[in-house]
C-alpha cells in the first residue's frame, strides 16, 4: 500500500476547489447557524441559486456572464425571503423544515423536464464560463501549462480557479469577521443567546434574523458561482440535501461561530474524505482482502466514506460540539 499517494491526494483536496467552495458556503452558513442560531438546512438551495444565476446568463439569457453575479444575488435574496418570511417569527425548527424542503424543491424544479428551457433539465447548463477563464489567460496563466512545485502542480486553468476561489474565501472571511465585531454582529449573537432579551431592548429581531439569513444565503450563492465556474458547468444533482449536511459537518468540525473554524473545517473535511477514500481504494486493491471479497466492492467505497462522514458529525456533536477552534459556550444555545 502506498500511504504516500494517499496523503498526497488528501493534501491536494485540503487546498482544492472542493474545499474552497465548501469553505465559502460554510462562512455563509456560519453567519446563520453559528452567529444567529438560525437552522438553515438548505444552504444547497442558495448554492444552486448562485450556480444557476451565473449559468443561465450566456446560454439562456444571452447576456454577458458577469451579469450573472447580479442574477445570482437576486435569486438568493428571493430564496432567503421565501424561506424567512413564513418562519422567522416562529420556533427555530420551522425554519429548518422549510429550508430543507425549499432546497429540495429548487433541485426538483431545475432538473425537471417542464423547466428544461430555463434550467437545462438533468443535463444542466454549460458554455458560460469562457469569459471567466479568459481573464486568467489574460493575466498570463496558460490553461494547458503546468505551474507549481512538488505535489502542488496545477494546470493554468485549475490554478486560476484556486486563486479566485481562495481570494473569495479570504474576502468573505474578513467581511464576516469585521461584521461580527460590529454592533450589528453583537445583536445577532445576542439573538442567538436570548431572543426575548433582545426584543425587550427594542430591537427588531425579525428584521435582524432576516438580514442574517439573506447575507448567509448570498455568501452561499458565491460558493455555487465558484463551483459552476470551476467546473464550467452546472449540474442539478450537485445541489442535493446531503451537500448542506456535509458543509454543516465541515463547519462543526472547524468550530461554529468562528471564522477560522468555518474555513479550516471544510478543508479538514475534504482532507479526511479524500484520505479515507483513497485509503479504502488502496486497501481493497491488495490481494488479501480486509473484509472478504464480496463485502466491499470498489463501487461501495463512496457510500462507506459518506457513512463515516455522517458518523463523524454525530461523534463531533456528542464529544466535541465546539469543534477545533470553537467555544463550547457558543454551541450551547437552545432551539426556540
Amino acid at each position, binding site marked *: 500500500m*502506498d500511504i504516500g*499517494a494517499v496523503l498526497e*491526494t488528501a493534501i491536494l*483536496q485540503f487546498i482544492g476547489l472542493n474545499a474552497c467552495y465548501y469553505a465559502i458556503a460554510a462562512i455563509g452558513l456560519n453567519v446563520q447557524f453559528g452567529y444567529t*442560531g438560525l*437552522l438553515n*438546512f438548505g444552504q444547497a438551495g442558495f448554492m444552486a441559486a448562485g450556480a444557476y444565476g451565473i449559468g443561465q446568463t450566456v446560454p439562456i439569457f444571452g447576456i454577458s456572464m458577469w451579469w450573472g453575479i447580479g442574477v445570482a444575488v437576486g435569486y438568493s435574496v428571493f430564496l432567503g425571503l421565501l424561506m424567512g*418570511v*413564513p*418562519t*422567522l*417569527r*416562529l*420556533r*427555530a*425548527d*420551522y425554519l*429548518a*423544515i*422549510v429550508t*430543507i*424542503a*425549499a432546497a*429540495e*424543491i429548487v433541485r*426538483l*424544479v431545475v432538473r*425537471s*423536464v*417542464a423547466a428544461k428551457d430555463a434550467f437545462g433539465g438533468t443535463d444542466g447548463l454549460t458554455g458560460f464560463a469562457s469569459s471567466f477563464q479568459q481573464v486568467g489567460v489574460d493575466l498570463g496563466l496558460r490553461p494547458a501549462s503546468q505551474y507549481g512545485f512538488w505535489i502542488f502542480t496545477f494546470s493554468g486553468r485549475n490554478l486560476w480557479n484556486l486563486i479566485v476561489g481562495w481570494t473569495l474565501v479570504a474576502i468573505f472571511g474578513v467581511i464576516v469577521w469585521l461584521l461580527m465585531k460590529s454592533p450589528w454582529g453583537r445583536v445577532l449573537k445576542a439573538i442567538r443567546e436570548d*431572543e426575548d432579551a433582545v426584543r425587550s431592548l427594542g430591537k427588531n*429581531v*425579525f428584521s435582524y434574523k432576516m438580514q442574517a439569513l439573506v447575507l448567509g444565503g448570498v455568501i452561499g450563492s458565491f460558493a455555487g458561482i465558484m463551483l459552476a465556474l470551476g467546473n464550467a458547468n452546472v449540474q442539478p444533482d450537485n445541489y442535493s*440535501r*446531503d451537500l448542506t*449536511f456535509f458543509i*454543516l*459537518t465541515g463547519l462543526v468540525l472547524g468550530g461554529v461561530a468562528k471564522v477560522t473554524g468555518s474555513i479550516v473545517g471544510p478543508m479538514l473535511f475534504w482532507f479526511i474524505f*479524500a484520505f479515507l477514500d*483513497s485509503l479504502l*481504494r488502496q486497501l481493497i*486493491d491488495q490481494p488479501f482482502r480486509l473484509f472478504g471479497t464480496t463485502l466491499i466492492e470498489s463501487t*461501495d467505497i463512496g*457510500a462507506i466514506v459518506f*457513512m463515516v*462522514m*455522517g*458518523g*463523524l*458529525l*454525530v461523534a*463531533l*456533536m*456528542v464529544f466535541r*460540539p465546539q469543534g477545533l477552534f470553537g467555544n463550547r459556550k457558543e*454551541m*450551547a*444555545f*437552545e*432551539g426556540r
Partner: protein
Amino acid sequence: MTTQVGGTPFHARAPRWFLRAAALLFVALAAFSGSSVAQAQDEVSLQVQVKDQQRDENGRADNQPVPGVSVVVLDANGAEVATGVTNDEGFALIPVPGRADYVVQIDEDTLPDGLALSPDTPSPATVSGDSFTTSRKIVNFFTGQSQSAEVSQIEKVAQRFADGVRLGLIIAMCSVGLSLIFGTTGLTNFAHGEMVTFGAMVAYGFNSAGLHILLAAPLAVIAGGAFGYFLNQVGFQQFRRRGMGLISQMVITLGLSIMLKNLFLWYFGGRDKPFLNYTNQVGQQIGPITITMRDLTVTILAAIVLVAVALTLQYTRLGKATRAVSDNVDLASSTGIDSAKVIRLIWITGGALAALGGVFRGLDEQVSWDMGTALLFLMFAGITLGGLGSAYGALVGGFVVGILVETSTLVGVPTELKTAPALLILILILLVRPQGILGRAQRVG
C-alpha cells in the same frame, strides 16, 4: 481522488522489458476492444412497431398488430437510411448504421382501410442517439383512439384520489412517530425518513432470503420498534439527561440520517427493486378506479392500523398518558405519569409504524435506498399542517398531504414536480395558522 488505471499497479522496480511488453499488450488489447465495439455498432437496429389500440371485453388494453405498413428511416439530415415493411406481428426490424439520431416515418397510405394514426402518436417519430440503451431501439406507432382519451374526467379524478388516499395513509403512518417524538421531547428527527427505509430494508432482507413477505413484514415491524428503542436508549435519552441542546440533537439526527442512508446504499445498492411476492398484479376495475389487489390490501391494512392507533390514543390509559406528555411534559410528570417511559414507548411505536409504512411503500412502489428520505419532506408538510406535536395532527395532516400531492397532477402540475405543492402548503400554513389544523395556538415571537 486517485483512480487506478488498468487494475493492477505496476511496481516501479519491474524490469523495463516487462513494462514494454505490458504496454504493447495494452495497446493491442485497446485496438482489439475498439474493433469489437465497432462490430457491435454494426448490429444496431430499430424495431418499428405499428399497433391498433383496442380493448377487450373487460376494458383492458388489447392492442392488435398492424401488418404491411411501409416504414422509412431518415438520418438527421433527412437522407433516407433504410426502409422496411411491418410483418404479421406488426413490426419491422430495420438495421441502421449506428447509434445516431434518426427520424422514423410510416407511410400512412399503406395502413389498412379505416385505420388512422392516433393523434397522440408523434409522426414522424424522432429517435436520439442517446436513447439506444440496447442495440435494438423500439419505436411505436399507434392507430385508433388512444387509451387515455377514453378515460373520463371523473374516472381520472377518482383514480388520482384513490392513489392519494393510499399515499396519504402511508405518510400518516410514517409520521405518527415523528410528530409524537417532537411533541414529547421537542426534537425534530431528520433521520425519521431513514427509519422508514429501515423497515423496507429489513423486510427486503428477509424476503430475499426466502421468507414470504407476509412473514417478513411483521419481522420488519418488530425490527423497526427495536431500532426506535435502540436510538432512544443509546442516544437521545442520554443526550436529554446530559442536558444537550435541542439544536445539537437535531444536528445529530442529520449525521445519523447521512450514516444510515449510505449504509442502506452499501447494503442494497443504488437500484430500485420490488419485493419478491405479489409483483405481477392485474388491475381490478372497482367502480371508476382501477386498482391491484395488492394496493387495495395495502390501503385497507393501513387504514385499519391508523384507526387502531387513533383508538389507542383516545381510550387506553397509555394513549391518554401519551397525549398528556406530548401536551406538557412537566404537568404530566407532576400528575404521576412516568414521562421517560412514555417517551421510550413513543420511540418504539414510532419506529414500528415507520417500518410498516416503509414496507407498504415498498409494496406500493418499489424498495430503494432513499425511499424514506423522499417521504420525509411530505411527512414534515403533513405534521405541520396537522399541528406539530399533536397526536391526531400527524394522521389528519399526512392524509391530506398525500391526497393533495397525488391530485395536484390533475390541475397541471407535472408528475415529476408533484411534491412541490407540499412546500406551498407548508409555507401557507405557517403564514396563516402556524399551529396547524389541530394544534393549539401559542405565542411565539
